[in-house]
């Protein structure tokens, strides 16, 4: 009994220095890692890029195969093509409406996003972190900075740059739960008053529309574009389409379910608007 007690005390007394040394070692390692954190992460991303891009392409192929299989092959592909075509048309409508409002020549409205005066940096998606964040292969060396808007070639808003490293960046998608974008319902009729609201992230790559006054009329199929009220994103970027309106007279605002236009599965390249904030 006495021996057992003695052994027990020895064990405890010998465990304490180990915990202290282990704790100190942990903090030293973490400190050193964070001191060179950006360089370490950047080096690993560069070294892993060839492998990652191969896996990424393989993932896309496997996903397409299962997607085609599940959605009856050709029908699925045709649907995807129609969606892309639809986005192009919506993008053109968005530009037309915006240009019409500005009183400019209608022909200019058919030009792409570059004609709006934006400098675009093309970037490839190299990974998906967590649920609503993607990694892209452009960083501070390419002129990317935190907060810059990220779109695709059809002017569909994906999100904004969240963290920048030398050769890659993390982009937070509009579906992330802390994301909130001021939007307006796209309206080709100038005589009607504009309807403003906010698109909020729900997580899991989905979003919803909120803060639409109950007296405003919104309907299924309405297209939402950025309103630029908050100053983070330029005006006229495509956000999503209303799929179901949820109106409750007891609440001051109505909400709506949205089908977001951004789709990671059909996107190879993204574009970062690098000069939007500078223009303001």
């Amino acid at each position: 009994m006495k021996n057992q007690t003695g052994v027990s005390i020895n064990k405890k007394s010998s465990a304490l220095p180990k915990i202290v040394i282990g704790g100190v070692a942990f903090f030293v390692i973490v400190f050193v890692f964070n001191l060179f954190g950006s360089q370490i992460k950047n080096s690993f991303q560069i070294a892993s890029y060839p492998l990652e891009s191969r896996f990424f392409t393989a993932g896309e192929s496997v996903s397409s195969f299962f997607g085609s299989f599940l959605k009856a092959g050709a029908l699925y592909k045709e649907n995807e093509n129609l969606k892309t075509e639809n986005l192009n048309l919506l993008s053109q409508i968005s530009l037309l409406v915006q240009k019409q409002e500005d009183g400019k020549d209608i022909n200019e409205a058919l030009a792409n996003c570059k004609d709006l005066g934006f400098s675009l940096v093309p970037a490839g998606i190299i990974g998906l972190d967590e649920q609503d964040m993607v990694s892209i292969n452009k960083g501070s060396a390419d002129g990317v900075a935190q907060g810059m808007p990220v779109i695709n070639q059809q002017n569909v808003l994906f999100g904004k740059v969240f963290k920048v490293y030398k050769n890659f960046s993390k982009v937070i998608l509009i579906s992330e739960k802390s994301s909130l974008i001021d939007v307006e319902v796209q309206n080709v009729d100038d005589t009607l008053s504009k309807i403003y609201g906010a698109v909020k992230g729900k997580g899991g790559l989905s979003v919803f529309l909120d803060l639409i006054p109950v007296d405003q009329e919104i309907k299924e199929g309405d297209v939402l574009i950025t309103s630029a009220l908050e100053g983070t994103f330029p005006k006229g970027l495509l956000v999503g389409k209303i799929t179901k309106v949820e109106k409750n007279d007891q609440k001051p605002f109505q909400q709506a379910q949205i089908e977001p236009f951004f789709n990671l599965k059909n996107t190879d390249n993204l574009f970062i608007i690098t000069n939007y904030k500078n223009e303001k």
Partner: protein
Amino acid sequence: MWLKVMLLTISFYMLAVLQNSFFSYLSFLGAVPNLVFVLFFLLIFFDKQRDYYPVVLWSVIAGFFIDVFSFTYFGVAIGLLLIVGILAKKIQKSLREPRQEFPLPYFLSLFIATSISYEILFKICAHFLNGISLAEILSLGILYNIIYNTFFAIIGFFVYKKVIANAVNKNQLKLL
């Protein structure tokens, strides 16, 4: 031993790259599996040593690769894996059945409890360090992550138990 550490370090790296690239397209309701965590847990679960050195070793290696490809600061995943790994080991020590047959329900309950702890702690850290919304904790995203991880953990469980553990018992695969 060093060969084992080297092989598993490469495995952790490959899994980290896989989950950040290949599985981006194979997400389950937006969730991407945390394969590094799954391998980490398998190593902890099937480790027969009674001390915590393997937990520390695998936490540092696995946590490093999670942190490298994550948006958070270095040390977050390492620290969290240390915490949940030590807790899992403590629970395992107090509950381990004498014959060490590692039944599936026992594995699953411990894996799910560890996963939930890790996911919630990670979201809390991401909130305070990176400003990510705390509402993520209450979202279904965590549930989808855990379901997806559990799917791979079950595969890993049978592979480890039937192939690797048997080989080790029969001295056919001494390096593991």
